[in-house]
């Protein structure tokens, strides 16, 4: 072992150096490796989490987009149906009002016609009566004979009736 001793191998010194190394090992572990490793792991974890979050957000966004599209489609359909309903109602109202108007017009026409007819009848009756009176007075004047007015009237009426019958036949 003489060779070793001349190189400087020395047991107490060696033990001190081993202790030195162990002290350095412990110190580096405590103050360098542990905190830095913790930070690296933490960061890796955070990165993973945020990636997952981004992925989830993207998926959610896609879903929301689909949902919105669906809503828009639904709204459009509803609007379409409302418009068509409104058009139907309008059509119906128009039809109804037209029918109403026609009916009323008919009623007015009918009434007017009836009134006209009664008026005409009345006028015709008046005219007839006038005519009969005129005829009677004329006849009385002609024959200077006073005829029973009642009888006469009846007579003319019959005559007229006959003439009407004749006209008809």
């Amino acid at each position, binding site marked *: 072992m003489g060779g070793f001793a001349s190189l*400087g191998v020395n047991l107490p010194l060696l033990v001190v150096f081993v202790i030195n190394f162990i002290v350095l090992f412990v110190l580096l572990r405590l103050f360098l490796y542990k905190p830095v490793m913790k930070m690296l792991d933490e960061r890796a974890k955070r990165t993973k989490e945020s990636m997952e979050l981004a992925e989830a957000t993207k998926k959610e966004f896609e879903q929301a987009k689909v949902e919105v599209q669906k809503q828009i489609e639904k709204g459009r359909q509803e609007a379409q149906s409302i418009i068509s309903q409104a058009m139907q109602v309008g059509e119906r109202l128009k039809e109804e009002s037209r029918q109403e108007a026609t009916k009323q017009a008919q009623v007015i026409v009918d009434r007017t016609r009836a009134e006209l007819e009664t008026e005409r009848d009345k006028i015709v009756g008046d005219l007839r009566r006038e005519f009969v009176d005129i005829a009677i007075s004329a006849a009385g004047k002609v024959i200077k004979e006073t005829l029973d007015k009642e009888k006469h009237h009846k007579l003319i009426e019959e005559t007229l009736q006959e003439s009407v019958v004749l006209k008809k036949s």
Partner: protein
Amino acid sequence: MRIGSSRLKILVFFFIPVLVLFGIGLVFGPLGSSFLGTTPPGIFQVPRPTVELPAEPVFHVGHFSITNTLLASWLTIIVLLVLSLFLTHKMKLIPGKRQAMAEAIVEGLLNFVESVAGKKHARMLFSGVATIFIYVISNAYIALLPFFGSIGVIEHDGKFAPLFRAANTDVNVPLSIAIMSFIFVESWGMRAVGVFHYLSEFINVRQMVEGLKELLKGKIGQGVMNIVFGFINLFVGVLEIFSHLIRMLSFTFRLFGNMTAGEILILVSSFLIPLVFTIPFYGLELLIGLIQALIFSGLTLVFATIAVSPHEETE
């Protein structure tokens, strides 16, 4: 034109002074003066370098003498402690410059360990391997600072003993790291594959016991064969033990030899041609320090990887 003038500036203010200093050193230094027979001026009379393999004691505490290499290794530990406290002062998720540097060092070493040992065992092996790397490279680099080997005390017998000397050039330091490396490798091996399984690689008596059993049962031929192979296994186990122990020696003398040679190279180069001639050798020493640290930690890592991977059962 601007580039040209800046190049000219570099030439004038850097290369020419360096060349002049080199010339002065060559002519008036010990090499030149011995060839030319001139007596150099007083400031060039450099003391003849002496090579001391054992570390010189600087102080004595009781019977124990504190050597300059021990002081240097304490300096290394203090510097590393302060540096790691400084770099990991206020750790944040978004790192600043200091924290980024600490993370780069740790992550780089961790990637190195993972690339050799695999992810499974990397965390277990990391602390030991990284500490060996950092300790060796710091010892080597701190030793390149100017106050190493230059400031010291004159002992009673008139001999000069520097206050600090490169810790790696004391054979005790590489030996202590090698012992720790050995302890690391064996303990990791036992932790990874189990104590009995790990030790069975070294003391392999299974086949011999089998052979003895067969001999007792009456199968003479097979029994004798197994006993012979059992002896071979035992012998292989002994070789294995020796190879593990020899590793320590090779670790020790590889680091010790390289670092001591580097130290002597710088000493001799600065003695023969003083002033600037020694600068390239400092660069060389930077490279050697890195390489030695890589070799020491890398070999420890490789041995540890072999130890933690379960060896096949040969049937």
